[in-house]
C-alpha cells in the first residue's frame, strides 16, 4: 500500500489534477464564447482592480462587515496553499525524485500553518451548523468538501509528530492528498480555478461597462 501510494498513485493524482484543471479551463473558455457578453466585456484593468480588492484582506465592503470570517478565510487559504508547497518534507521528496526543491518553511511555522488549516476547517463546519443562512444552503456534499481538505492536513500533522503508526498515517496522508488534488477540478473546489475569471468578469462588467465598483 505504501509503495503504491508513494509511486503510481502520486503520478495518477498529478495527471488527473493537471489534466482535469486544463480540461475545466478549456471548457470554460469555449463555453464563454457562446455567452455573448463575456469576451466583449472583459477588461484587463477593471478585472485586475476587482481581483486586487478581493484578494487583499478587508479590501471589500463585505469583508469589512465580517472581520472574523475575513481573518479566518484569509489565514486558511494562505496556509492551505503555501504550507504543502514549501514544506520541508515535501521538498526533500522532490529533491530525491527530480533533483530540485523550493525554499522551505521553518518546521515550526509549517506546523502552525497546518493547525490553522485544521482549525479553520472546524470553523467552517461550525458555521455551516450554526449560522442559519449557511445551514439553509448546506448539503452533505459541503461537509465532504471540508473533510477532503482537512484530512491531508490532519494526517500530515499526525505523521510529522509520529503520534500514531507512522507508516499507516503517512499512507493515509498520501491518499488523502491525492484525493483532494483530484477533487479540485471536479468539485466545487474548482473555485480555485474559476475565482480569478468570475471575479475578473464581474469587475469588468461593473467597471468598464457599468462604471461602478464591485467591492
Amino acid at each position, binding site marked *: 500500500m505504501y509503495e503504491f501510494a508513494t509511486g503510481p498513485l502520486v503520478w495518477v493524482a498529478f495527471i488527473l489534477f493537471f489534466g482535469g484543471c486544463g480540461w475545466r479551463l478549456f*471548457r*470554460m473558455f469555449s*463555453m*464563454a*464564447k*457562446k*455567452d*455573448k*457578453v*463575456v469576451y*466583449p466585456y472583459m477588461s484587463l484593468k477593471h478585472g485586475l482592480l*476587482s481581483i486586487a480588492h*478581493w484578494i487583499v484582506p478587508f479590501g*471589500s*465592503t*463585505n469583508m469589512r*462587515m*465580517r472581520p472574523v*470570517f475575513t481573518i479566518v478565510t484569509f489565514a486558511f487559504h494562505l496556509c492551505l496553499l503555501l504550507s504543502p508547497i514549501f514544506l520541508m518534507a515535501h521538498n526533500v521528496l522532490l529533491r530525491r525524485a527530480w533533483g530540485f526543491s523550493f525554499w522551505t518553511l521553518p518546521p515550526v511555522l509549517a506546523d502552525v500553518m497546518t493547525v490553522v488549516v485544521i482549525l479553520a476547517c472546524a470553523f467552517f*463546519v461550525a458555521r*455551516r*451548523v450554526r*449560522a*442559519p*443562512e*449557511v*445551514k*439553509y*444552503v*448546506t*448539503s*452533505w456534499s*459541503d*461537509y465532504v*468538501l471540508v473533510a477532503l481538505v482537512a484530512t491531508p492536513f490532519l494526517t500530515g500533522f499526525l505523521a510529522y509528530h509520529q503520534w500514531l503508526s507512522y507508516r499507516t498515517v503517512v499512507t493515509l496522508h498520501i491518499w488523502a492528498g491525492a484525493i483532494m488534488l483530484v477533487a479540485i477540478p471536479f468539485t*466545487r473546489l*474548482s*473555485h480555485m480555478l*474559476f*475565482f480569478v*475569471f*468570475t*471575479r475578473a*468578469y*464581474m*469587475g469588468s*462588467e*461593473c467597471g468598464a*461597462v*457599468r*462604471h*461602478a*465598483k*464591485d*467591492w
Partner: protein
Amino acid sequence: MGFIQTVLSGKSERMPRKLGPEQMSPDRGLDDTIKRLTPERIESTIKRVMEKETAGRLRVYLDTCVHCGLCSNACHTYLSRDKDPEFSPVAKVKNTLWEMVKRKGKVDAEFIKNAARIAFTECGACRRCSMYCPFGIDIAYLILVVRRVCNLLGVVPAYLQDTTNSHAATSNQMWVQRDEWIDTLQWQEEDAQGVIAKARIPLEKEGADIMYSVIAPEPKILAQLINYMAQIMTIAGLDWTMPATDGWDNSNMAMYSGDFETMGRVERQHYETALRLKVKRIVMGECGHAFRGAVYDGPKWLTWKNPPIPMVHAVDFYYDLITSGRIKIVNKFKEPITVQDPCNIVRGLGLGQKLRYIMNALCEDFRDVSPRFEHNYCCMAGGGVINCGPPWKKSRMLSIKVKADQLAATGAKVIVTPCHNCHSGIEDIIKYYKLGMHTKFICEILVDAMEIPQHLKA
C-alpha cells in the same frame, strides 16, 4: 447531535412548506397557467434554456458557488424579513435553479409556481448581491434565467404579463393609443406654455440634436413630467424632438418578465425611431430599468456591444445643464431632502456622484442616505416586482422594511427618486410604514429652482 442531524438531514429544508399570505398570493398568472403544464414541457423548456440560451457564465457560476452564504447581507428581502435564511440570494437560487439543474428539468408544476414566486416577487434583480459574493457571481442573472424558464412556460404574474402584452401589441407598456400619445404631448405643450411662452414640444423634427424619450407611465399617469422637460429644454435652448410614432416608449417590462424576444423588439424599435429622426443622441427621462433595457439587456440580446446612438440618462443630462451654465439655479429647495440611488443608474451606470452634485446644487438641506452609492438598498419595486401588481403588494412591503428604516433615519421630508420604479415603490413604502414623507423627481424640483429669463416668461 445537532451537527449529526444537520449532516444527515440535508434534505429536511428542501421541501416547500405551506406559504402564508405574506409570501404567496392568488394570481391567475401562476395558479391558472401551471394547470396547462406537462412534465415533458417543463423538462424540455428547462433543457432548452440550460443548453441553448445559457453557456459559460451559468455553468461556471453554478460550479463555483461554495454555499458560503456571504451574499445574505446584501439582500434587502433577507434583511427586512428578520434574516430569514429563505430570503438570502443563494437560497433563492437553491430553491429554483439548483433544483432544476440537479433534477435535469424533472420538476413539477407546483415547483415552477414556487420558482416563479421567488424569481418574480422576491428578487428585484438589483444586483447588490453580486458585490457581496467573493466570486462576483451574478446572482440576479441566475434569477433572470429562472424568469426566462417561467416565461417560456407561460407562468408569469398576470399584471406583469399584461405590461409585456402591451409592449407586444401597442409598442408601449401602458396600452397608450397612437392618437392619445400625440394628444398628450400637445396638451403638455400648452401647459408648458402657461409658464414659458415659447415652450414647444417639437414632434418628428428630423436632424434634431436630441430625441427625448419617456416611459409609457408618463403620458398615462404623470403627464406633467413631459411639460417640465419641455420647460427645461426651452430654457436650456436645446434642439430637440419627440417621435409622433411608435418607438417613443423607452421602458421595457418584457426584459423582466423573461420575454426576451419582445424585449429585443422594443429596443430595436426605439433605436430605429431615433435613427429615422437622424438625431445625435437620445435623452431619456428619470427611469432606471429603461436605461438598463436600452443599454445593456436589450443590446445583449440583439448582440450589439453598444447601442447605435448614445443614450443619455436624465441625471447625466441635468448634470451637464447645470455645470455648463445652460440652466441657472436661483431658487433652491428648502425642506430637508434625501435621495434614492436607483440600482440601474448607480450600480448600473455610476451616476451616484453626479446625482449628489445635482442634489446639492438644487437643495439647501440635502441629507444623504446610508448605505449609499453602489451599496444603497433596492426599492423592491424595480426588476418588475411592482409590476406584479396588487396581489403581491403585501409581500413587497414586508420585503423592504430596511429601506423604510434607512429613509426614516435621514430625517428628511422629501425623497428624490430619479427612477419611476423607485418613485412608485418608495411612495408605497412611505404609506405602508407611515413615514410622513413624499417623493419627487428631479425635474419637479428643477423647474421650480431654475431661472426663467424675463423674455421667455409667459
